[in-house]
């Protein structure tokens, strides 16, 4: 007697969605691909926005940058929502245990008044810069084109809100949860002459119209300089002042900065290599914002760090600019 063994493998009719197949061929696709490409409506919009009748709802002309295919700006981290939140959850878990330890061991009590003052005057106010970064990335998300870039900008915007909240928590740990340190640090932000240049610049950035310009001004120029100065360089100074433990609380920001630069550098590189016109625009914007941000930072950095600090930060920025291929 022969037994017929039925192989119950079901042959699929197709491997992936047709739009993915048109882009990458008829083969199994990744979750990032299926959740990213061609999601945004391209054509046949019904009504022009009442708030911007000169544009369609989704419109490539909200920036001067021109891309043949905006989906070329893929994310090397392959973040779709699920991948993004899971990655950030891991980072927050690490941060949470540091914050927990810091509180449990009452490490704030070991900080000198000088260190505490320095933090309230110069570090905690960064939460307002992060708030601006949140707005600027939201702006790019809302007015940008194609899911590849807009989803990454939204993740970035939410990250900035998260960082602003971590910075606020540092303040709350210093003041024993009364909020006093946040009130003081906001006063510095609002009134301390050293901060006014940066505050004015943040306000100005939220009025820039071209979404790619403001995203570049924020994520390339402002962030490279600010993260280098206020996290890396300030870390050294804090350590010398007996405030080494603060590094536990800013580890998230440093790890985050590396993660995000990987993405944004690749975006810039793709945009720059698309055309000479793009490259020229990126170059002009970089120059313009570099000089604005440096001018604005000067007074606060003069008070906070060594004279060569700004040059070190600029060297960092120039490295990134070169890497992205943004040349005159």
């Amino acid at each position, binding site marked *: 007697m022969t037994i017929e063994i039925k192989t119950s493998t*079901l042959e699929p009719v197709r491997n992936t969605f*047709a739009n993915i197949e048109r882009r990458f061929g008829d083969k199994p696709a990744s979750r990032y691909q299926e959740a990213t490409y*061609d999601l945004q409506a391209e054509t046949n919009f019904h009504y*022009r926005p009442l708030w911007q009748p000169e544009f369609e709802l989704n419109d490539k002309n909200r920036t001067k940058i021109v891309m043949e295919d905006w989906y070329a700006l893929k994310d090397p981290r392959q973040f779709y*929502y699920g991948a993004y939140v899971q990655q950030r*959850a891991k980072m927050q878990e690490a941060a949470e245990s540091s914050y927990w330890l810091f509180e449990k061991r009452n490490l704030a009590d070991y900080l000198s008044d000088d260190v505490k003052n320095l933090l309230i005057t110069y570090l905690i106010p960064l939460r307002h810069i992060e*708030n601006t970064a949140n707005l600027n990335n939201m702006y790019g998300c809302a007015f940008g084109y194609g899911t590849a870039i807009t989803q990454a900008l939204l993740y970035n915007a939410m990250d900035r*809100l998260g960082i602003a909240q971590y910075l*606020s928590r540092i303040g709350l740990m210093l003041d024993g949860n009364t909020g006093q340190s946040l009130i003081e640090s906001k006063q510095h932000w609002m009134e301390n002459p050293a901060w006014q240049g940066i505050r004015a610049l943040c306000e100005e950035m939220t009025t820039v119209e071209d979404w790619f310009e403001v995203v570049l001004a924020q994520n390339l120029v402002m962030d490279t300089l600010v993260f280098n100065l206020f996290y890396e360089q300030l870390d050294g100074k804090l350590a010398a002042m007996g405030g080494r433990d603060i590094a536990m609380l800013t580890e998230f920001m440093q790890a985050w900065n590396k993660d995000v630069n990987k993405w944004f550098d690749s975006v810039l590189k793709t945009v720059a290599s698309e055309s000479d016109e793009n490259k020229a625009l990126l170059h002009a914007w970089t120059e313009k914002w570099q000089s604005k941000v440096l001018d604005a930072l000067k007074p606060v950095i003069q008070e906070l760090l060594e004279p060569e600090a700004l040059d070190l930060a600029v060297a960092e920025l120039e490295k990134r600019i070169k890497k992205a291929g943004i040349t005159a």
Partner: protein
Amino acid sequence: MSAKKLNLKDKYRLLTRDLDWEYSYVDRKKAFPYEEFEGIKITDWSKWEDPFRLTMDAYWKYQAEKEKKLYAIFDAFAQNNGHLNVTDARYVNAIKIFLTGVSPLEYQAYQGYAHVGRQFGGAGARVACQMQSIDELRHVQTQIHAMSHYNKYFDGFQDWTHMHDRVWYLSVPKSFFDDARSAGPFEFLIAISFSFEYVLTNLLFVPFMSGAAHNGDMATCTFGFSAQSDEARHMTLGLEIIKFLLEQHEDNVPIVQKWIDKWFWRGTRLLSIVAMMMDYMLPNKVMSWKEAWEVYFEEAGGALFKDLARYGIRMPKFVEVTEKEKEHVSHQAWWIFYNYGHAAGFHTWIPSDEELDWLSEKYPDTFDKYYRPRWELAKKMEAEGKRFYSQALPQLCTTCQIPMGFTKMDDPTQIAYRSSDYEGEKYHFCSDGCKHIFDEEPEKYVQSWLPVHQIYQGNCGGASVEEVLRDYYKLNLGADNLDIKGSPDEQRWKEWKGVA
């Protein structure tokens, strides 16, 4: 140092809206330019009550836990060929409509909330909208991933985003959301957060998710339940925005009322697709559309509007029409699709005898009188080998874009034609509700991209309907469209199930 420790509410305020500040160096209106043109008066953003208090670290943590579970189920579903567990191949057509018609709206919600999440001057409202934006991105992406497996085994899913931009019946949901997003930020919130998410959302999600649960569709049902805790947050935002606007200034009341009237009607028209899905497309029924309407709108909505009466808000205009419509709308909608089944990206069919009886029982006042005879006729013709399809292109309602197939609700034998003249042109509507919406904002609705007009004007490729369907819509003709009987979907299903 005798300052008091913070309570949760004040702490959340410090962690969100206190990040913002009064501008001194540029005009704040240049940074937030769209807050005034709708005529809404905001006197004090600080009165905004945060509808939920969720910091980003907690958000990452909770959402990551949810995604971990959700994707574990998707993986298992694919590995075990979960699609074989649905009731029958007809069911899958309900989720084809979902992916092509609803998922793109989740995408538009992501975009719309990103826009208002940047533009509101009040940081509390802004942050709540940003969180909704990222949630809505989650919804569209998890829906794609849930359907990804179905797409490998059934027709009609494969070009969902291309279809959404072009196919005639998909302009109904698309124009709905285009309408909301092209409006000002406050109207957008009244349209989507309040009228849709708060008042009507149960009529969209309960039918699809319980439909999935009743019909063995593990993938859809899991993402539905997983999205529920997000939706709970979205609903609190809907309630907060309406209370906030009504309490800010009495001049806001008539504006908000006008928006409620408009978006309630727009919403009911959009839901007619859900109505037919519930009554005709689910092999295992959940409840009838009429019952769903009574439970989720008439009872729940009735209580809500009683509550809002103290602000001077009344029930939406034309609500009395919906009371009659609930008896008819699902039957008329499925009939339209049965007639145009050759031009649809999913399959249609005649209800089985048991299903006809179920409909008679659920609609004792209307089904046997008006609708059963049509199906009996269709059955007879099908038995004679004469399954019919309407060849003429239908006229569409300028507002909701549904083919003009709905009847007068007092006389279900008469199509309800309405029209308006505007700048020398005539515009047609399916109902008084749609005509009223047009008359309030004709400059907006004359722009409508009406698929049938566009075909006639030659803007959709070829000269024949077949060319439009094949080349412009990219339907796989003979596979995606036509009756379920004889379709490749049905054939494969029979092979998998080992029935002849």
